[in-house]
C-alpha cells in the first residue's frame, strides 16, 4: 500500500481500526484502517462494490460492524467502554454519537409528505425540540444558502433532482454536524443538474472546521475540493494521498487501471 501521512496533522475525528464488515460470506471491508482529521476533506473513490458507501453507512450507524473499532472524536462509535473493555453500543449511545454526523444520500431520501422547509426543520423540532419559530429561521437561512429561498413551501415532488438534493444538504446541515458525508450525491442526477449540487458542496468545503467525507465518481471535483483521496478496492485502501498525486500519478496498478477506465468513459 502506498500511503503518506495525512496532510493535516490535526486531531483525528474519524478512526477506523481494523474494521471488518461482511454481508454473508462476502467481506465488504477487510481489516480497514482509516484516519480522518478534523476539518479534513476526504474523497473516497473506487469501483462499485468496493465498500466505499459501506464506510459512510457504518459512520452513519446504518450498518453495524463485524469486527474492529470505529472511533468518532476519540470515542468508540459502535461500542461502549465498560470496565476497560468494549461492549456493543446501545441505542442511547448511538443517538448521542449521531449528533456529530450528517449524511446526504444518493437518492436524496427527502420526506415526500413535507415541504422543503418542513424537511429541513423536522429534526430540529422533533429531535432537538427547538421552538418552531427558531427552527424555521434556521431552515429559511439554510435553504437560502443552498439557493432555494423561493422553494420553501414546495413539496419534493415539485422540485428537480438537483433542488431536492440541495434541500437534503440543507436538512443535514440544520443539525450542525461536525462531519458531513456525501454518498454519491450527484450520481442520480441528470448531467445538467450536477453542477448546482457540486457548487453547494464546494461552498461547504470552505468551512474550515467541517470535516467532509465524499464518496464520488466526479474525479475532477474530488481533486479540486479535497485534501486527500483514498482509492478503495475490495474493502481495502489500495492507495491514498494528495489528489494531485493519486489522481494524476497513481503508483498502484489497480488505481491506474481504475482511473483510466473512469476517465475514458
Amino acid at each position, binding site marked *: 500500500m502506498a500511503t503518506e501521512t495525512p496532510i493535516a496533522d490535526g486531531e483525528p475525528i474519524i478512526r477506523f481500526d481494523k474494521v471488518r464488515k461482511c454481508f454473508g460470506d462476502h467481506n465488504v471491508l477487510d481489516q480497514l484502517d482509516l484516519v480522518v482529521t478534523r476539518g479534513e476533506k476526504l474523497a473516497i473513490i473506487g469501483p462499485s462494490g468496493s465498500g466505499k458507501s459501506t464506510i459512510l453507512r457504518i459512520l452513519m450507524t*446504518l450498518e453495524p460492524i463485524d469486527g474492529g473499532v470505529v472511533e468518532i472524536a476519540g470515542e468508540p462509535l459502535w461500542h461502549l467502554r465498560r470496565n476497560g473493555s468494549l461492549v456493543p453500543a446501545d441505542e442511547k449511545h448511538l443517538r448521542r454519537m449521531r449528533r456529530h454526523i450528517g449524511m446526504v444520500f444518493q437518492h436524496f*431520501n427527502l*420526506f415526500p409528505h413535507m415541504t422543503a422547509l418542513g424537511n429541513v426543520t*423536522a*429534526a430540529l423540532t422533533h*429531535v432537538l425540540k427547538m421552538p418552531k419559530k427558531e427552527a424555521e429561521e434556521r431552515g429559511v437561512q439554510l435553504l437560502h444558502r443552498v439557493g432555494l429561498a423561493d422553494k420553501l413551501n414546495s413539496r419534493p415532488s415539485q422540485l428537480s433532482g438537483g433542488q431536492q438534493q440541495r434541500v437534503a444538504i440543507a436538512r443535514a446541515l440544520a*443539525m450542525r454536524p461536525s462531519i458531513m458525508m456525501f454518498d454519491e450525491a450527484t450520481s442520480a442526477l441528470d448531467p445538467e443538474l450536477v453542477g448546482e449540487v457540486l457548487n453547494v458542496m464546494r461552498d461547504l468545503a470552505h468551512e474550515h472546521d467541517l470535516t467532509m467525507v465524499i464518496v464520488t465518481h466526479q474525479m475532477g471535483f474530488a481533486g479540486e475540493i479535497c485534501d486527500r483521496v483514498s482509492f478503495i478496492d475490495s474493502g481495502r485502501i489500495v492507495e491514498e494521498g494528495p489528489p494531485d498525486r493519486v489522481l494524476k500519478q497513481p503508483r498502484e496498478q489497480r488505481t491506474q487501471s481504475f482511473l483510466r477506465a473512469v476517465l475514458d468513459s
Partner: protein
Amino acid sequence: MIWDWEYAIDVLPALAEASLVTLAATFWGFFFALIIGLVLALLRRSQIWLIRASTGFFVEFVRSTPLLVQLYLLYFGLPQIGITMTPFTVGVIGLAVHVGAYISEVYRAGLDNVPAGQLEAATALNFDSYRRMMFIILPQAIPPIIPALDNYLVLMFKDTSLLSAIAVVEMLQLAKILGSESFRFLEPMTIVGVFFIVMSLLAASGIRYVEARVGRGST
C-alpha cells in the same frame, strides 16, 4: 305475504333506536380495530423474534377462525375466568380484535411500501424509533391504505349483525324478536336491509371524502 305499511311504520321507531346500537358497535369496534391493527402490525416488525412470531401466530389464529366462534368464546369464556362485561362490550372487543387482525395486514402492506431510504434518512437525522414512526413512516404508510381500510369498515358494519348471537339488541336481533312476536319478518328485515345499504353507501362516500383530503395533503 304482502307488505304491510302500517306494521312497517309501527316497528320503525324501535328499529331506528336499535340502529343506534349497530352504529355504536361499528364506531367503537372500528376505532379499536384501527388501534389494535396498528399495534399488531408494529409488533410484527419487532426486532425480537419471539414477539414477531407470536404476533404472527395470533393474527393467523384470529383470521382463520369465524368471528361468531370468537364472540361465543369471549361471551361465555370470559365470565369463566371472572371477567364479566355487558354483551355490547364483549361484542365491540370481538369485532375490534377480529377486524384488527385483518387490518394489521393492511397496515403491514402500507409500512412495507415506505422506502427503506426514509427510515435511513430519519435515522441519520437522529430521530428515535417512536418519532421516526410517528412523523416519518406512518404519515407515508397510511394515506395509500385508506381505500382498503374503507372496505373493512363496511365489512365490520355488516358483521355487527353477528352480535345478535350474544344477545346484543342491535337491529337484526330486534328484527328477529319483533318477527317472532308478530310472525311478520318481511317488514322488519327489509327495513334492516335498507338501513345497511344506505349506511354502507354513506360510509363509502364519507371515506372517499377523507381520502381525497388526505391525498391532497400528502402530494
